[in-house]
């Protein structure tokens, strides 16, 4: 048996050279199985849509783009392994992939080691700027800080309660929120973490109720939100009494949770399906046409779509898929994305994005109630914020 395994395993040695033919291979690496699949499958779909559109227009550099799809299986070592496979076996020109920070952190050394490119489409906790990663989602100062400013100025919140899932993003985000709060005269009345996937929130809800904050900042992930909002409502704290700002609930999650349970709650992103503009109308129509009218678009889906287009634009500009040339061509590159005009920041390879605060509607879509004056310059290390010193 060992023999058979080794024998067939050796079959594909010496293969490769995927970029040499009539096509340019790119990697698409998301969790298609496991707990994260519910979010990541939609993101993969958006990337495949963007590739299909590019190919319909003739591809890049006159060659068709050939996606190589791999399953990260919601398991971080698998992400690292598949990333290595895409780079060394398939010789992809770039990889679009990841969702959780953990998967990105697992892939980061692989891409840096091989000097290969990763495009990462999800908002995250900041404090990172790898020379081989393009971050097409928001960093903290484009999502969390605008949300806090909104709570302070528009909702007149003087006290906050922090609730999150127990992993890296919520813990790091809450550290930043506490530093901001201390500098802005806002009290943080408590900080609670639930294990990922937890559905038991009576203790946390009771603590929130006892503390009586002006607002809750919610970094819970996935299914936990269903239970949390249900129990919050059960405790007599609907959206009208206690506003909850969530940074991990977008249209796709609302679809899973059920709009009735989160109606009226506040979310913070850079894009909603309802964002006005011709580019977005075209994008939403194309996505629904390909995947069904019931499907919705949201921020990570849009970021996944736009990052493929940004990569293609950079390749065209560079006249090559060579990593260093693509990086150089990407500096200051702009693209009319569904969310509006986006620009790549040459220093940290993040993207200028407009912050948008939205309210969840009964139909599951999100209405923008506030937006920043134009795109915000990405600042992953919060260098321009005095209160963030020492984070």
């Amino acid at each position: 048996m060992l023999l058979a395994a080794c024998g067939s395993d050796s079959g594909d040695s010496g293969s490769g050279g995927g970029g040499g033919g009539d096509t340019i291979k790119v990697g698409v690496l998301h969790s298609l199985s496991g707990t994260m699949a519910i979010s990541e499958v939609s993101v993969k779909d958006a990337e495949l849509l963007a590739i299909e559109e590019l190919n319909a227009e003739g591809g890049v550099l006159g060659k068709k783009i050939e996606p190589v799809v791999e399953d990260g299986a919601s398991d971080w070592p698998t992400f690292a392994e598949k990333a290595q496979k895409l780079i060394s076996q398939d010789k992809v020109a770039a990889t679009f992939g990841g969702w959780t920070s953990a998967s990105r952190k697992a892939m980061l050394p692989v891409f840096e080691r091989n000097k290969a490119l990763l495009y990462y489409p999800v908002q995250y906790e900041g404090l990172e700027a790898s020379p081989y990663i393009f971050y097409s989602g928001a960093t903290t100062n484009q999502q969390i800080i605008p949300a806090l400013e909104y709570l302070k100025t528009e909702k007149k919140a003087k006290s906050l309660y922090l609730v999150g899932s127990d992993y890296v993003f919520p813990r790091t985000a809450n550290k930043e929120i506490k530093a901001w709060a201390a500098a802005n005269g806002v009290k943080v009345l408590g900080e609670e973490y639930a294990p990922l996937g937890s559905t038991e929130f009576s203790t946390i809800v009771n603590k929130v109720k006892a503390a009586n904050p002006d607002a809750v900042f919610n970094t819970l992930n996935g299914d936990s939100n269903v239970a949390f909002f249900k129990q919050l409502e059960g405790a007599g704290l609907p959206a009208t009494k206690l506003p909850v700002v969530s940074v991990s609930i977008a249209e796709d999650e609302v679809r899973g949770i059920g709009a009735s349970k989160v109606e009226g709650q506040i979310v913070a992103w850079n894009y909603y399906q309802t964002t006005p503009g011709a580019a977005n109308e075209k994008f939403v129509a194309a996505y629904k046409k390909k995947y069904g009218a019931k499907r919705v678009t949201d921020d990570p889906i849009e970021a996944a779509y736009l990052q493929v287009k940004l990569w293609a634009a950079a390749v065209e500009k560079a006249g090559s898929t060579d990593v260093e040339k693509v990086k150089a061509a990407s500096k200051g590159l702009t693209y009319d994305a569904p969310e509006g005009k986006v620009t790549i920041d040459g220093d940290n390879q993040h993207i200028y994005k407009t912050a948008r605060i939205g309210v969840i509607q009964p139909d599951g879509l999100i209405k923008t109630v506030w937006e920043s004056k134009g795109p915000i310059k990405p600042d992953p290390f919060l260098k321009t914020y005095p209160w963030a010193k020492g984070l």
Partner: protein
Amino acid sequence: MSALLATVRRRVVGPREELPARIAFAIVAFLLIVVAPSMLSDFRLGLLAKYLVFAIVAVGIALAWGRGGMLVLGQGLFFGLGGYAMAMHLQLAEAPDGQPPAFMTLTGAEHVPGIWGPFESTAFTLAMVVLLPMLAATLLGLLVFRSRVRGPYFAILTQALAAAFVIFLVGQQQFSGGTNGLTVMTFFGLDLADPDDKRTLYLIVVAVLALVFLIGRQLVRSRYGRLLVAVRDAEDRVRFLGYDPTLVKVVAFAASAGMAGLAGALFVPVVGIISPASLGIVPSIEMVIWVAVGGRLSLAGAIAGAVLVNYAKTELSEQLPSAWLYGQGLLFVVVVAFAPRGIAGIGEWLRENRGRLRRGRDATPAAATTVEEGA
């Protein structure tokens, strides 16, 4: 003269009935040491190294479960203890002078957590990789085997511990790296990005697997191995004969834990990252599945199972990224339904039924062989 020749022959080749096993061992060793590194690409060789790391865990499970009847559903715990011990050491060794280890930039902690301190030492780490899991298994074993916890109760207990360990690691982010786990770039001077160094690492894995296999085989064939099978089949009778079944079981359980720990420690440089996602309930069950597919009664079968299942997993997930889990599930169903003793069991079944197959169905079945031979 002929007496001398006979002695030499016995020493080198062993008794006649062992000849096939030894030849098979030599062939597999040749394939792994000479053929694979020259035939496989760097990436595929890295994957094979990972399968062989898993095979080390499988040998331990075949020992505890196949031989000892202890269904160990929580090997992720021991795998993780070994893995985290190694990852802590490697991160400390990689950190530039005066700088904290890499994961701490994320949590923002200023000082290296106290528990990391001793892992600065190479000798301490190498010892802990094996001793820590063995110690944990010994304590647990003494506690539960003494109070005669066995069967499903023992299986559930081990599983609960693996789950608790994952919750602990995720919660204690400030020293464990939380869900992100710990990433490493070097292994005792080997650069994990360098193809030649990766080949060296692969050969280290092969050597450790060979060593673990030989130790396991020795245990199985010794008087102790017979006692272990006796405890599995009739624990009370063994007790009446004056042996202490608790100790017999603890030794096998601790040995399987030590092997899992060793595998965890090698998994870290081979894969480059260890995180709670590799240790929880699902990965722990998968480990048992490898052994079930390979054949729990045979150490070689367990190794083959670990390599085959993981190879199938890679191949299926590359061919059918959206549907590979169904293929894998089908594989398990087929094996369990048609070859309940695993792949190794197919060979045994053929041997047992050779006579019947040849003479037709009316003949008396061959005497049922006790499934005893280990390798």
